[in-house]
């Protein structure tokens, strides 16, 4: 956001030192538009240059100081005036004085802590940005540069499966199982639904992914639920003893990592909702929370291990001696 307007006598640009090499990530803005921003991780240094360009060369620019800030803030939409800053760093670039020509200033925020992931939601926004300001008596000139921060996690040490028997007494008993409780964003949910007792007329079954954004505290807690995915896993009437498999690829859906009580301001949690629908459109459901996390991009050294896993599809036991599938017969 820049205050370009009538009477601005200078332009500010913020250029990052590693702009050529640094990756960019897509991030949805409040109005739904997708833009690309420079991607940073926790602990990385943010360094670059601030260019102050005089619009009318020869005309001096008097100022009360030039500075650059690195800010991480949470903005609740129902309370727009109050920005909660959880990271606030500042570097003074110039003492109050006069600019007679365009100038460039270097800056470096070393090993900046970026504890949370950037998030733009329905009722809350968490963003990181650089803001360069030329302070003046009447009105400041400033320029902001938004960046996106991703928080990475490593494979959890403990990742137990979720297995539970639920139902309505004497009407419907099922046992559901999901292979993990913590999934990364490009993971696959592998599971099954086993029918123990079916005394109702089921027409189909689906699994939904629900995102719940919680803002506010105490009596003013507000939950915003959003169904991100609906995936039919069964069409028709099951009977006792039948097992329905689940294989749901998460990479196709726009999701964020699970965020719990971020700076005590908001949470974003994900739930699997298993829904059974009967002949009369009655719905029976069971919701279960899952933890989503973001995996770093790491290239695996060994390709044969990956290929061996990919060539297995069903219950065949994994055999490390089996060569990977290389040819596909063309029968044309």
């Amino acid at each position, binding site marked *: 956001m820049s205050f370009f307007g009538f009477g601005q006598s200078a332009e500010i640009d913020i250029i990052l030192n590693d702009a050529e090499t640094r990756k960019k990530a897509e991030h949805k803005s409040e109005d739904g538009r997708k833009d690309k921003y420079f991607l940073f991780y926790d602990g990385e240094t943010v360094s670059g240059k601030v260019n102050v360009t005089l619009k009318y060369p020869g005309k001096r620019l008097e100022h009360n100081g030039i500075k650059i800030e690195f800010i991480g803030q949470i903005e609740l939409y129902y309370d727009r005036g109050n920005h909660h800053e959880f990271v606030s760093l500042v570097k003074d670039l110039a003492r109050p004085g006069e600019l007679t020509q365009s100038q460039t200033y270097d800056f470096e925020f070393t090993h900046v802590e970026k504890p949370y992931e950037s998030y733009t939601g329905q009722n809350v926004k968490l963003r990181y940005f650089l803001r360069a300001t030329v302070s003046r008596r009447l009105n400041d000139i400033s320029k902001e540069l938004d960046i996106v921060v991703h928080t990475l996690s490593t494979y959890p040490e403990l990742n137990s499966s979720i297995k539970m028997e639920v139902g309505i007494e004497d009407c419907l008993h099922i046992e559901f*199982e999901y292979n993990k409780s913590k999934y990364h964003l490009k993971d696959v949910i592998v*599971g*099954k639904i086993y029918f123990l007792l079916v*005394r109702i007329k089921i027409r189909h079954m689906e699994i939904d992914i629900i995102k719940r954004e919680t803002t506010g505290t105490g009596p003013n807690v507000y939950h915003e639920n959003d169904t991100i995915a609906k995936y039919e896993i069964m069409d028709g009437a099951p009977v*006792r*003893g*039948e097992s329905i498999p689940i294989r749901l690829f998460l990479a196709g859906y726009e999701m964020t990592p699970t965020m719990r009580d971020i700076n005590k301001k908001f949470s974003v949690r994900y739930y699997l909702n298993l829904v059974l629908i009967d002949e009369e459109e009655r719905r029976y459901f069971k919701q279960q929370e899952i933890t989503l996390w973001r995996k770093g991009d790491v290239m*695996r050294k060994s390709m044969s291990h990956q290929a061996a*896993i990919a060539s297995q599809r069903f219950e065949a036991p994994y055999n490390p001696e089996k060569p990977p599938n290389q040819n596909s017969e063309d029968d044309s």
Partner: protein
Amino acid sequence: MAEAIADTRRLFTKPQNLNDAYGPPSNFLEIDVSNPETIGVGRGRYTTYEVRLKTNLPIFKLKESCVRRRYSDFEWLRAELERESKVVVPPLPGKALFRQLPFRGDDGIFDDSFIEERRQGLEQFLNKVAGHPLAQNERCLHMFLQDESVDKSYTPSKIRQA
């Protein structure tokens, strides 16, 4: 232990018992509303319908039953279920009061096409309601479907299975 490609093989499942796979399902419940008969003469006439039930659900005492009910009995059932249970009870086919006014060109509420329309609506209503797990716990539903006559001065209660 990190894997670039996820293992998507199916989870282990017990093989299904063949009796379960090919035997009769445990959810068999059929209700038919049929054979409308108009009883009485003149002003006091009314129509009754045969309500026939076939089931293998243990919650029903009789696996087959056949009773006769009139429209006001259905209205009574609907009111009881609304009051006693948390079920959102579906609507009945219309009361058609306008058909009971005099000087109509047709047979009013004893018109064949009207009775057929009403019969269908009553059948839909019963199938929706009788399959509801919560409604199945209500004494009034079982009395309506399987007792010889409806005792409107009964004591509402829940059915418990042994």
